[in-house]
């Protein structure tokens, strides 16, 4: 089957500074692909390219087999490419229900959005009248993921889901990610800390200095990860 996402020799970054130096990455449909690497490796920039927010200076971005270089991020979002950014990407000064209402822009009714959100994350139902910014980090992350589910994504891009969260919460969130994958949603998840994500992923890649240095089964990648982070491998 055609990969849902493919990056070929992607170079890009911010202005004249290239962060990515020839990234090759393939996400097959229905897969959970973990992209791991230390801080500053270019993981978030890669997600920026995949979601159309950063236009690559060289290379090709394929979505479902079509070269979509230069496509606007809103077109990709409408089609079903959904990014949950690092730092959650919710409206902190609105209540949970108001946040969910904001997610109805794609034409989904509030009742449907709430139904999906509260089924996946029952805790949000208890907090529906609470200001989102006053909830715990884990609950905010759940809300961010609820937004992603509201638009019925085909490809979900998750950036540092575990950032600043307790291990138990992270585990719970990744259980949800596994459930989403079981429903057929393809997921590219970026993480600095691999422990939780490797348990739910089918394939993992290590990214260092703007390049993918290794792609393979999660078990193999887990073994090589420490060495990679400490600067051992660059093949």
């Amino acid at each position, binding site marked *: 089957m055609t990969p849902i996402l493919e990056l070929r020799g992607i170079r890009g970054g911010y*202005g004249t500074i290239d962060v990515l130096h020839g990234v090759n990455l393939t996400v097959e449909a*229905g*897969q959970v692909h973990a992209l791991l690497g230390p801080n500053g490796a270019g993981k978030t920039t890669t997600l920026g390219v995949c979601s159309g927010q950063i*236009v690559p200076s060289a290379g090709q971005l394929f979505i479902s087999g079509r070269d979509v*270089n*230069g496509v606007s991020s809103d*077109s990709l979002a409408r089609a*079903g490419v959904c990014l949950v950014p690092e730092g959650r990407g919710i409206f902190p000064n609105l209540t949970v229900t108001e946040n969910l209402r904001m997610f109805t822009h794609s034409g989904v009714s509030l009742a449907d959005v709430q139904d999906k959100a509260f089924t996946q994350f029952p805790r949000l139902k208890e907090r529906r009248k609470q200001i989102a910014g006053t909830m715990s980090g884990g609950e905010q992350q759940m809300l961010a993921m609820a937004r992603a589910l509201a638009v019925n994504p*085909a490809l979900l891009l998750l950036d540092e889901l575990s950032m600043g969260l307790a291990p138990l919460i992270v585990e719970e969130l990744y259980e949800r990610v596994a459930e989403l994958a079981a429903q*057929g949603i393809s997921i590219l998840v970026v993480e600095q800390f691999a422990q939780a994500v490797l348990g739910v992923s089918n394939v993992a890649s290590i990214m260092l200095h703007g390049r993918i240095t290794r792609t393979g089964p999660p078990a193999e990648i887990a073994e090589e990860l420490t060495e990679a982070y400490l600067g051992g491998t660059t093949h």
Partner: protein
Amino acid sequence: MSTTEATEPSPRLQEFQAEVDSMKIDGGKANPERRWVILGGLMMLVGVILALVAWLNIQGSKVGAWTSDFQAMGTFGLTLAVVGSALFIVMSLRRYFRFWLIRLIFEQREAADRIAGKN
């Protein structure tokens, strides 16, 4: 975890495929001002060279039929240099302000997070 080994794409995936196929793509490039900045710089350089060559040829010579050619060349060179400079400055500023705006948005988000007690 087991891989989803579907041979037939799911209905959602087929729908996604159709939406991606129907997208209008303008093939936009990163750093769109770069081409114009380079063009402006080149125009400036060529304009100055033309004006300089014209001035050196007219310098100290008597007025003749051919001097008007150099006058035209000099005027064209100066015009090219002025237009090139304007293009260079406008596009450089546009690029600068684009990144300044991105930075501003980022800082505002950071501030909003701090107020909300996220960090």
